[in-house]
């Protein structure tokens, strides 16, 4: 369990990082927290020629909270969002979801942007980016551009970004008015990757009737997806809506796989249960916002 030989660069500016990536070619890898990358190296499941460690690049470690949303820099660790009251006020899913990412030691090193760049469908933050309708900013030698979440995730551990590029931040839009959220997951052990998780938003009108109910699941499907469950509960009162019907609808929309820890059927069951539970909670919250 020792990595194969690799080169190491620790650029001190974004330009330098990009130029190293450009000169090293496809087999160079960006390293942020290293919590996903280094185990792959140690098990020799990946053998990049060079690691481009971005930890010394200035300006990537900020959480910028605006009215329109929260911009999370590439070096912000999961723990930085977990305890960020300002970010939570604008987009409560950030703290709620990061609380479910791994264990404290990993949250202290692993970055939220890194987990999005890693594009693991078992990661919490990929789903949150999708559910909130977020985007990432990708810097390349040619310049920076925003990439919408739906264009970013291509497959498990695969994004649309190729060639020399650093994801410099992720943007999570603010929660709309009269909208509540909830996040819950089931894992075999506390802190493990979820067997199944659900993040949801519920929007109400001024009579507390449901106008929108949306969900995104963890460890279900190959890429993060957002499912619109509104039709099952539209127009129903927040207090009495048939959340079970929304859960049942969700079960028909997902296409989970089975693995060592859960059969596809069991994941589908959990999608229903978690949908029902989280929507009910989100609706309660929406009434107070």
């Amino acid at each position, binding site marked *: *369990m*020792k*990595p*194969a*030989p690799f080169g190491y660069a620790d650029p001190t500016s974004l330009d330098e990082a990009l130029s190293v990536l450009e000169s090293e070619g496809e087999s160079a890898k960006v390293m942020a927290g290293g919590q996903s990358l280094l185990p792959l190296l140690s*098990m*020799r499941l990946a053998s990049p020629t060079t690691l481009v460690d971005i930890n010394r690049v200035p300006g990537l470690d900020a959480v910028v909270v605006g009215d329109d949303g929260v911009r999370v820099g590439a070096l912000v660790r999961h723990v930085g969002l977990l305890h960020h009251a300002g970010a939570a006020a604008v987009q409560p899913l950030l703290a709620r979801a990061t609380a479910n990412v791994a264990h404290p030691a990993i949250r202290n090193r692993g970055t939220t942007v890194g987990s999005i760049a890693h594009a693991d469908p078992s990661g919490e933050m990929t789903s949150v980016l999708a559910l909130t309708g977020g985007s990432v900013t990708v810097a390349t030698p040619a310049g920076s551009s925003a990439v919408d979440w739906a264009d970013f995730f291509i497959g498990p551990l695969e994004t649309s970004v190729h060639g020399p590029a650093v994801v410099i931040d992720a943007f999570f839009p603010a929660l709309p008015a009269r909208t509540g959220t909830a996040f819950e997951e*089931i894992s*075999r*052990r*506390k*802190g*493990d990757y979820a*067997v199944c998780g659900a993040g949801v938003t519920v929007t109400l009108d001024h009579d507390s009737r449901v106008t929108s109910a949306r969900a995104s699941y963890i460890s279900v499907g190959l890429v993060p997806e957002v499912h619109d469950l509104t039709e099952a509960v539209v127009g129903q009162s927040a207090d009495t809506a048939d959340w079970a019907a929304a859960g049942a609808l969700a079960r028909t929309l997902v296409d989970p796989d*089975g*693995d*060592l*820890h*859960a*059969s596809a*059927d*069991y994941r589908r*069951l*959990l999608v229903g*249960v978690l949908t029902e539970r989280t929507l009910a909670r989100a609706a309660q919250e929406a009434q107070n916002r």
Partner: protein
Amino acid sequence: MTTKLMGEPVRRREDLRLITGRGRYTDDIGHGALAAAFVRSPYAHARITGIDVDGALDVEGVVAIYTYEDLAGPMAEPLPVLIPHPQLTAPRTGFPLARDVVQHVGEAVVMVVATDRYVAEDVCDRIVVSYEELPVVVGVDASRAAVHAVHADVPDNVAARHHQETGDVEAALAASPRTLSFTQYIERSACMPMEGKGVHAVWDADDSSLRVHTSTQASTSVRAAIAAKLQLSLEKVEVVAPDVGGGFGVKIVHPWPEELLVPMAAIALGQPVHWAEDRREHFISSAHEREQRQEITVGYDDEGRVTALDVRAWHDNGAYTPYGIIVPIVTATQLVGPYAVPVYRVRIDSVYTNTVIVTPYRGAGRPQGCYAMERTMDRIAQDLGLDRAEVRRRNLIGKDQFPYDHHLTFQDGRPVIYDSGDYEGLLDKLVALVGWDRAEERRAEAASRGKQLGIGMAMYVEGTGPGPYEGGHVQVLGSGKVLVSTGLTSQGQGHETAFAQIVAHELGVPIEDVEVTTGDTRRFGYAVGTFASRAAVMSGNAIALAARGVRAKALRIAAEILEADVEDLEIDEGVVQVKGTPGTAIPLRTVAVLSNPLRYAFDEAARQATQFAGPGDDSKPPVAVGDAPGLEHVDYYSPIRSTFASGAHAAVVEIDPTTWEIDVVDYAVVHDCGTIVNPMIVEGQVHGGVAQGVGGALYERMAYDSDGQLQNASFMDFLMPYASEVPDVVIDHQETPSPLNPLGLKGAGEAGVIPGTACIASAIEDAIGLRIAAMPISPTELYDLVRSPDAERVPAAIPGVPA
């Protein structure tokens, strides 16, 4: 006695070192040594058709590459069958490096030695081994079917047919008012010590001697194995077990191929060589345990009293049988537990599969036996509509029936005769401790919260402290320091504390003066090892006897000096004194100096001692015939047979009927290991055991696919419970001393894990009202079970593993 030490919760002296990173493990020894790494088989069953090392030779830093062709003399022979048995008719072991056929994924094929481990792994990557794949056998059922053979010359895949019976079981079943039969499975888990195996070997060419540090549970035997296999004289080999980061059984197996190959390379290269097993290696090339298929038929009367028990089982021993059939024998003989079973027959076939070898893992066959017997008790209770505790009570061996002879032969070849116990006492305490009689109230309360609550129990008897012997050496130095050594090893159990307590108590010295060394062949050459809950029983008693020897000698010498009668002397806080006359005293350290007539005054202790030295008797030699210089004593303890500890566990589970998550909310243990040396250590052992029991019941399994690939060979997918998954454990002790040994001890090391699977299965069954026929069980499997209640859950379908 100023300070009472036996039975006190003395804080573990080793913990500060161990938990602040100051332990010294094999991997901490000898920086700068060459590193070994292994090319291991990627196939579960294949013939090696070629090994091409050409591409590896030009890697900078490669020092040597070894294949089977490089093994000479005894090294080229199969590894030993450590524990032969007449019923083990087809024993098979591998070679240190595979010769022609590999029998499981992970078997070592090539050893690489390089300047460091990174380079060694680079070299491994470049070695090309060609294989011709052979048919793979995975699982007891496939092995039984014997469509394919693991070993070509064992076509039925049966290594051993173990068989014991205490009477005519068929007649007894026929005469039984009632009978029932059922089949159940238990799957594989493994020891998973925090520290894997590790070997560090240094060859001293000038002295022609070898020093090996290895993370073992049996250093004296590793030493003998190395000497034999590498053709060295025993006195030229030293083996030391430094701090060992857990063993749980896997490190009692010896010699592991690496324990021979690393020293072999160190000698050949004339340089220190080091190998530290990584986690993946541990998963695929160490040892697993527990997989069995059990078919049980029980006869009983209308009151639930067992009249006959017939057990037919198949035990998966993996690819080889280096450790013989200890595990199935333990299952066979410990299965009956605390119950009087009038007629018992057990037949266990130990069968080969193309998987990692199966050798003792804490409990060593007992969890399986307990699972068979305790689920039988539950079945009887269900059939008769009786309380499960009551059925157990009716079958318990009575307090007045000891010694109780089961007419079985134990793993050590000795009769299974229970020395002492009070099983009804255990049951009474357990029922009270867990609130057994309030279960229905709790069930209703949980239901009001939407949870299904269930309660289960399991009892066990554990043969502990088997022989043949252990020894102890106790020596008092002129400084007052008391050196204690014993040959068996420590893996974190707290021996430094418990053995020091025993010596301080026996000798009358402050515990701070006592220093304990274990598992170092330089200090003690004869030992068996740490397994079978035997350290306290075996070495504890040996050390007590050695301390008594020292005490006797100290009193004899002091009596002469103080001109007193030995009977009038006592030792307290390290001072020998005349009872009731505090002034007439001599420090034990001074007695130590005086015990040696050669008394160069190198230090203050020696100078002081001379004031006590008499003129000497010219008519006698300075050291009397039969006496020896020095204040030390070696003694051995060799038991007539094992002593039998016992216990009872209960678990309360809550199941969420929407997600089928299983939560162990309460766990109660009543534990009887005879006289307790240190209750804190015993409780720690119980806690750790319960954690492993919970793991085995709900989380851990070795997920082999049908190609013999282990699908979850990492801590990402092999789930051991975290602290967050282990329930708080409440413990009550019962002390029924063993009449067999001087201290009245029984072993405590393995107990905590034994009833876990049985007890949790019982609780889940109680919660959902459906039969659990295979363990472990996870929420996804529970969901399958509740959807098809007619089908019994058998391990045919591990999710995600292609059948």
